[in-house]
């Protein structure tokens, strides 16, 4: 899977990210790096431990990274989750967590395919 196809598959905005970071090589480097980012694991574990402050931060970090990489879909759900957790747990948070999990899976599946292709 090429980088452009990867962005299509994870429903991101390739043109936008290329416009900001200016180099395909750089974009690819950071997209592959996304697999190593610990924020998602932190989000899951802190939700489990009902540590909503930490969960807010983790969600906020995911949102920021997605913004930088123009992962539009995951950005949207993580953004909404961040707001839902800003003042601790709220009833809207639960369905949003599910949405973020789904979108995250979609994103990493696409990136893994890219990784298999380029051997990163």
């Amino acid at each position, binding site marked *: 899977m090429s980088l452009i196809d990867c962005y299509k598959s994870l429903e991101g905005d390739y043109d936008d990210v290329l416009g*900001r970071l200016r180099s395909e090589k750089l974009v690819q480097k950071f997209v592959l*790096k*996304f697999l190593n*980012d610990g924020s998602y694991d932190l989000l899951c574990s802190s939700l489990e431990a009902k540590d909503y402050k*930490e969960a807010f931060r983790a969600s*906020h*970090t995911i949102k920021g990274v997605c913004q930088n990489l123009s992962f539009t879909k995951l950005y949207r759900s993580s953004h909404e989750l961040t707001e839902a957790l800003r003042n601790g747990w709220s009833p809207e948070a639960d369905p949003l967590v599910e949405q973020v999990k789904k979108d995250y899976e979609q994103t990493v599946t696409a990136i893994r395919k890219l990784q298999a292709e380029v051997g990163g």
Partner: protein
Amino acid sequence: MSKEQQFKQKILIADDSEMNRAILADMLESEYEIIEAENGVEAIAAIQKYGPELSLILLDIVMPELDGFGVLEVMNRHHWIDEIPVIMISSESSSFHVERAYKLGITDYISRPFDAVIVHHRVVNTIVLYAKQKKLAALVMEQIDEKEKQSSLMIDILSHIVEFRNGESGLHVLHIRSLTELLLKHLNQVSDKYRFTKEEISMICIASALHDIGKISIPGEILNKPGRLTKEEFDIMKTHTTIGAEMLEKLSFHQEEPLVKEAYAICRWHHERYDGRGYPDGLKGDEIPIHAQIVALADVYDALTSERVYKKAFPHEEAIRMICNGECGAFNPLLLQCLREIADTLQENLNNTKTGQIDEQELQDILEEKLHPKDNPVSERTIQLLEHERMKSSFYASMSEEIQFEYSITPPMLTLSEWGARRLGLPELIMDPLGDERVTAIMDPEDIKKLGDILHNTFRKNPVVKYDCKANTGGEARWIRIVAQALESLEDPPVYTGVIGKAVDIHEARLRLDALESMVSHDALTGLLTIEYAEKRIRERLAMSAGERYVLLLLDVDHIKEANDSRGRMFGDQILAHVANIVRSSVGEEDVAARISGDEFLILVKGRSDEKEAARWIMSALEGDYEGFKVSVCVGTVAVEEGEADYDKLFKKADKALLMAKRGGAGQYRGYNDCMMEEKNL
């Protein structure tokens, strides 16, 4: 580190996401040295470490430990924000956040997602602007400094002219100025009544140089007359005060200048005395402006210690004594106190101060700088020196096998040397260490608090403190010695701001000391405590645990004399050792057992109240056969009643009871009762 990298400007990136840091670092690392921090606490540690070497900080808002606003608050508190520009990068786009960040002093706010090229431009622009601003500030400082130098030069020349007529060297003006400065600074420290700012001090010192300008109008014959002045001559001499003041008053301009006002007061009133017996106006007490009082005192001191046409120089101590005795007129007691308190270091300080000296070299330097501006601005060289110092101290720290530490009160933060952190298994930086279990697991909070209190309470008088305590290092409790120095702020008076210090392992040395102490505290034959140590320990027990029940027993081994006589002294000693062994194995850890002397022993048992039972317990333990010798003891006891803490009385009572027991023959027991004391003379 390559040479090239060493002189790259440094940028700190503080963001909790490694990815976000990497994206920013990637854009900037070819031109700048990147330092990364993954939370606010690390960011502050980096700012403390690198200080003004940082050219810029890129700061995220939402971070663990301490968020971006927290970092900005600390930067404001320490005025770092004035030195280091901060660009905030965040996906928080609410105007509330942006507004707050700007209020806290950031230079720029970049929202995510950012454009790499734009971020790059903004970073470069900000750094260049700040560098320009710093250069400009340095230039302005230099100019001000130069101006000040020149104006004080003018004043020095002017007053030198006056001195010159007086046949003096110009040292007088210089001394008056230094003395005035020393007195003013000390007065600031000891008195709440007077508060002089640095600017005021500097101005009064400059003005002090003008105190004698009126002498320009005094005829040379009077000014330089070797003998005593006649009354008429003295009256003329006195007018130098009013004439000097008048000269300043008649200046057609600068009337409103504070310097002129200060100088007026000093000229006119530097011969007034606190009791009103000075001249020209006979002002009294605080009617005399304080700075005129100070210059008057300085003037008298310098006049006494200098040689004049009409007198020899008095030694320093003599001069101080004469002034304090009132031989040169009355002065403000507070100023006399100041003079006495700075007296010890006065001579040294006067010789060291160069303030205001007309120095040709200095003039040369100023000129040189003007003609050939240096390529390197001063600040860059300073930074290189700092870098050098840091490398040096980090090297020494790693070599010395000491745990070196630094603690700052605001923010509460403990920084450990690299080696120290590794040794203790702690991170190099710990926020709020007193509330951190990793720290309190190593050192008892009681000890930390005690050490902190000592440092805090004595930091003005005795800033270096030694403290021995136990600490859990490497999984065992070991004795350590902490040598620490309190840090104080540059304010006046200084404030306690933190501590630097080191901890050294003294475990082995301490154990040797303990072993030595144990050797002298134990009886050589029996291995029990000596009576002196037992007494000390019992007194401690009684003082510490009031309300606890104890029984004090005194034992006397029967027939030892006979055993000595019939089977030799060695055998007698063996019996005593045998008794001691049984006593030692019978008493508990909280009891005290000692050999008093010869064949007498002492036991203090805790938690018993029945004397008789206590006596039976030890007697039955001891009774028996030792190599054909029938061992038995006489016992006298006294029960320690609640709240009774007088060891001497208790001992006397038990001793009395023992005497009674012995009187009844071998193997007897008596408990003390008050009737016994009545037979005093037995």
